[in-house]
């Protein structure tokens, strides 16, 4: 009853993926992030809502950008932050994921930001611990805050995603970013096409809310936004394309290709960039690129997420 009177449009204490969320919930996070964006422009870049709360960055995979972004977001909300990085997976070295999380919980943490190599690991954690769980990337399942910051960046420039044509190019099969983008963008009304060689596409799959193409040249002149995925050499199994040279030839975002694109196309990339491979430097640094805006917006989005899950958890304990 109390919760209703507060009129909160957000009552989830975990953010596991954008697949779970309604368009309204996604919009609510983005709207909340708008307020937090301003915090970063003030001379005192700090707000108090998470004061006295403990956030742990539990990272089982390498990350610089996302981990630092979450740490900074937590700092700006006045939370205490613990860094816990562990490169080995639970099977190879002693302690299981569950035991690790339970140990952290015993120290009295409030929010776990988790990155893990196994799809579903954050969902598994959320079922087994009391703290809030925020997914910072799980296997090739989802990377919801990346998806949110992509949505935020597009919405900020274009006002809305409704009716936009968006291409996501590259190694979709192994990309959690592609999946979170797919759910978020389509829920907000955009039309998404996955582009890449069939060896890097998710196979002949019915039911996904996207189109699939293996020809970038066919669609480069039709899209409003193009998101170039990083070639993740560490995830590629076998030899999905014959050479980097050939990959760049078909799927690289080159200056030449950009000449055929709409003049106001937004060029995005989740980073880190392989310059000259999936994207030429001149394009990455060019006038259509919003790659650094993405990073900036990521901070506001992550502040919003930490704020909202914490608030939902607080409301739940009041009942």
């Amino acid at each position, binding site marked *: 009853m109390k919760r209703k009177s507060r009129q909160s449009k957000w009552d989830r204490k975990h953010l596991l993926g954008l*697949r779970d969320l309604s368009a309204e919930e996604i919009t609510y996070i983005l709207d909340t992030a708008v307020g937090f964006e301003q915090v970063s422009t003030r001379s005192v870049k700090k707000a108090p809502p998470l004061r006295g709360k403990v956030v742990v960055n539990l990272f089982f995979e390498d990350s610089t950008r996302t981990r630092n972004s979450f740490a900074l977001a937590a700092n700006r909300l006045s939370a205490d932050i613990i860094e816990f990085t562990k490169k080995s*997976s*639970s*099977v190879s070295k002693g302690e*299981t*994921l*569950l035991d690790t999380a339970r140990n952290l919980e015993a120290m009295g943490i409030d929010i776990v930001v988790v990155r*893990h*190599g*196994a*799809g*579903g*690991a954050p*969902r*598994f954690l959320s079922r*087994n611990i009391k703290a809030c769980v925020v997914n910072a990337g*799980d*296997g*090739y*399942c*989802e990377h919801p805050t990346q998806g949110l910051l992509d949505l935020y960046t597009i919405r900020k420039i274009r006002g809305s995603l409704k009716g936009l044509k968006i291409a996501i190019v590259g190694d979709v099969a192994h990309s*959690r970013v592609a*999946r979170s983008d797919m759910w978020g963008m389509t829920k907000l009304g955009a039309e998404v096409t996955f582009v890449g060689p069939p060896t890097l596409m*998710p*196979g002949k*799959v*019915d*039911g*996904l809310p996207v189109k699939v193409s293996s020809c970038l040249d066919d669609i480069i002149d039709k899209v409003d936004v193009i998101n170039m995925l990083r070639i993740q050499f560490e995830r590629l*199994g076998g030899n999905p394309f014959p050479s980097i040279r050939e990959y760049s030839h078909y799927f690289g975002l080159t200056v030449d290709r950009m000449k055929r694109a709409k003049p106001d196309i937004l060029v995005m990339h989740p980073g880190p960039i392989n310059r000259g491979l999936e994207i030429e430097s001149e394009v990455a640094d060019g006038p259509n690129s919003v790659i650094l805006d993405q990073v900036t917006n990521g901070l506001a989005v992550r502040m919003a997420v930490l704020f909202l899950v914490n608030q939902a958890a607080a409301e739940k304990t009041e009942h």
Partner: protein
Amino acid sequence: MLFDELPTMKSGILIANGHVIDPANGIDKKCDVSIVDGIIAEVRENIKPARPEASNCRVIDAAGKLVTPGFIDLHVHFREPGDEEEETIASGSAAAVAAGFTSVVCMPNTNPVIENETDVEYIHRKARQARKTHVYTMGAITKGLEGVELAEMGFMAQAGAVGFTDDGRGVQDPAVMLRALKYAGMLDVVVAQHCQDERIAGGGVMNSGYHSTILGLPGIDPLAEEAMFWRDIQLIKKASVRYHAQHISTAGSVELMRTAKKDGLPITCEVAPHHLLLTEELCAEYDTNFKVNPPLRTQKDVDALKQAIADGVVDALATDHAPHLQSEKELEFLAAPFGIASLECALGLYVKALVEPGILDWPGLVSLMTTRPAKVIGIDKGTLGVGKQADVAIIDPKARYKIDPTRFRSKSRNCPYQGWTVEGRVEKTIVDGEMRFEA
């Protein structure tokens, strides 16, 4: 010998008034079964009970019950030697006999692998000590299941191994498999295969398709199974040996099986209960109790398997009972081991999957759990024929109950059927004429 003429020295059991189903002898009627000294003595109507003073002659009133040959499971993992915390031959045997299974076949992927006659004898010794059910074992096709060098199939066959398999994996190299098939041909034992091409399967952990895509989990394409099964069918034509495809799971494998049978090849196959009752979307919550290999497939595959069973294309139902500790299953879906423990609820599951929807009648079901699997491995069991070792199950076909893994005799609880209500309960199990289980 007539039951009522028994000398008092002899022990006996008379199962009276039950409905006997013995597919091997075409019996499906109300009659009595008498057992003397561990052997089926008579199966007919109105066998006179033994003299009341003969206390070692027991009369069981089986009115309203089914009396069938004891069940045979061609595919169980009892984890001994090596993983006794998950299961032992003693705990697995107790589970088996409580579920009506009087013969089970252990898979050789233990630690160490069952790959010589000493290993085979070890299984048999443990089974004798447990004194619950008949425990057979298959031996490894290749040493260490590595798919490179042939294991000592001859010595293992002499020690009583009833077949060979590298179960858990398939033999990847076609040249090695061809060699194994040719060599096993001289031993008159079946070669069984877990069909899965590991290069196609990659590091998959569930069926590949829409669900694996949105869950972000690597998938196992049905082709991984079908490609190896197709390959093996070609190899068999070059050898003289019986071949058994273990736990087939896809509509494509069913088609291959149909063609192979039509062509008269010596090929048999088995189907596991989870591939008849569960589908891939159950993995959606990353519940690792649904992680099994071959993976849960689609409804289309389930329907094809059921049709194959209805058409007689499938030779055996086999649980692939694969016990794991809760702590092992309580992991990320990617990291948890494959396997479902289902031995103790097998009958109820089969009834639900096959009898309730009218795919099989009771004699049809009993046949796939007794005489037909016996033929696959070539053992003289699975019948109530006079003179045979008395392995008998007495079943209450109407008993409904809730599956409760916490009450399993098995050491493991990795059972996705928890809370399901099923029909058909084993009341008594007789092995070698001894009452080994009573509910």
